[in-house]
Each structure stands twice: as C-alpha cells, then as structure tokens.
C-alpha cells in the first residue's frame, strides 16, 4: 500500500512567507497573502519533505501515518 502522510503546521512559528505553498511540487498546500498555509490536498503528498526542509521558521513537519 502507498504511504500516506500528514502535514503538521505550527502557526505559532509561521511567518506567512509563502515558500512552502509556492514550491510544493504537488500543490498540497495553499495560502493566501497574510495567512498561514492550509493543507488542501493531503492525498497528493508524496512525502518529499521539501516544505519542511525549506521552511525557514521550523513550522512544518511531515509525518508518515500509514505504510
């Protein structure tokens, strides 16, 4: 079975820079100006973790929920 992922966003640390939603290769995250990102398409996540590694504010974590 394909792996499933959960994206956790810590709004406390997020500065709404928009890097994660702009550079997500699968458009899992969406964001409007001045707001924290929201997970709009969790099923499309491939678990590349680029959002977590490119988040300058340590506000995103990607967890495996099902293998």
């Amino acid at each position, binding site marked *: 079975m394909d792996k499933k992922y959960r994206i956790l966003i810590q709004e406390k640390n997020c*500065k709404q820079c928009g890097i994660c939603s702009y550079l997500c290769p699968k458009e899992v995250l969406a964001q409007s100006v001045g707001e924290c990102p929201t997970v709009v398409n969790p099923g499309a996540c491939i678990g590349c973790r680029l959002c977590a590694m490119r988040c*300058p504010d340590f506000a995103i974590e990607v967890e495996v929920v099902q293998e």
Partner: protein
Amino acid sequence: MANYQDYMLFDKLPHTWCAGCGHGIILQAIAGALAQQELDKHDVALVSGIGCFGRVDDYLDLNCMHVTHGRALPAATGIALANPNLKVLVTMGDGDSTTIGGNHLIHCARRNVNLTAVIANNYNYGQTGGQYSATTPSGSITSTSVYGHIEPGFDICSLAAAAGASFVGRSTPYNPVQIRNLIQQGMQTEGFALIEILDTCPTHYGRLNKFGDAGHMLEKVHKMTVPVERAEKMTAEELEGLFLTGVLVNKPREDYYTRYQKIIDRLCTEENA
C-alpha cells in the same frame, strides 16, 4: 538515529529573522549535518560573528561563542588550536566573512586551520538596513547604492580556493539537502573547509532588486546557479553570470595544528637525544 531536532533549542522560536529569510533553512541544514554524523554536542564548538546570520548560535544547543564583527575566524582558530579534538563550525554572513573579516578569511584558508566556515551570502548588510557589502554584484541596488552598485562583488569560493582552502562548496537554500551534505563533507575534510550559501534576503536585497516574494526569490537565486558537473560541458558564454554549485575544491592537505605539533615533537626528540 539522531534527528536535527536534537541539536535545536525550540523554546527560542520563533526566531528573529524576517519572513522568508533563507537563514532558517541553513540553520536547519547545519543541525541536520550534525545529526547525520551523530556527533556528540560536546564535541562541537560553534563560533558566530555579528550580523543576521550571527544569530544562528541562539537557536543551537551547542557550545557557542558570539564574537565581534568579522572576528569569528580568529576566535575559531584559537579554539581549533587549543583543542584539536573539537569539530569547529564558524557561521558568518558576507559582511562578517569578506567585508570586515576579509583578511581573516584568506589567512585562515592559507594557514589551513582545521575548521568549517558556513557563509550565508545575502549580498548586503541585512541587519543594519541593507547597505552594500563586498559581495554585492555590480549594478544591483542597495540602500547605499541606489543608482546601482559600481564595484564588482567578490566570488567567495574562488577567493578561498586561491588562498588554499582544503574544501570549498557552494549551494543555495533551494537545495537544503545539498547544504547539509556539503557541511558534512566539509567537517570530515582535514583543514579549512568553506561552504558558501547564496542566500535570500527578500526584505532588503530582494525587494530593491525586484526578486519578488520569498518563494520567487528562492527560485530565482537557484536559477542563477549551475551544478559544477553540468558546467564542465558548457561554454564560457553559456556560463556568463552563473554561479557554480556543488563541491568546487576537494584537495585535503595537512592542517595547521598537525604541522605545529610535528615541530613540537621534533624539538622534544632533539632535546631528549
């Protein structure tokens, strides 16, 4: 297996840097490089200078020293010579490493002191309002060069390579995995290792030079680079204005401490003979 989070002080977050600043990405990559090597925290010493990137030490759970502007390398040299078993990391910005501390950088590379310098080059003095530094590219706008910068900028990697560094690498925050691996490789190389990161400053440099928001700037800086392997097949014209990324120099040579110790050993033997 160790995780980058083991080396971080999460209670200090959110950090001081602006929204979209690449420094946070490099900070995570530094912690990731330590985790990848499963280093004991007490075997690592981190020295940082003044500037935005000098604040890195506030967020890492390591033995840190925050020193005066441009003098991170002399302080780190002292640590590396006093305790050669330590892995010494130096975090500097472009102002710290090439503008105010430029002389220390070339002499540290020439002496080949066993330490790893991580330089976040964001082409301006971000903390004081975006003045130009020694790496600001010619023609670009900063708060002190509003009609375009007249001077050409330093190429930090070529400078370190010419001065004799053992290891030189370059990356951008677009590739956090590459930064992590370069830092790890640099730390495992004998002698002076320098990793330059072409950083993003969307607040000052990016805004004045029309790079767009944080995500666009990250992508545009990435497009200014070409991997060194691919560059070998390109002509000089195609490479015009592009920065090479990856491992640029990997020529380990005997470090300063080893050579100093050899003299001590030789003199002790002669004295006892």
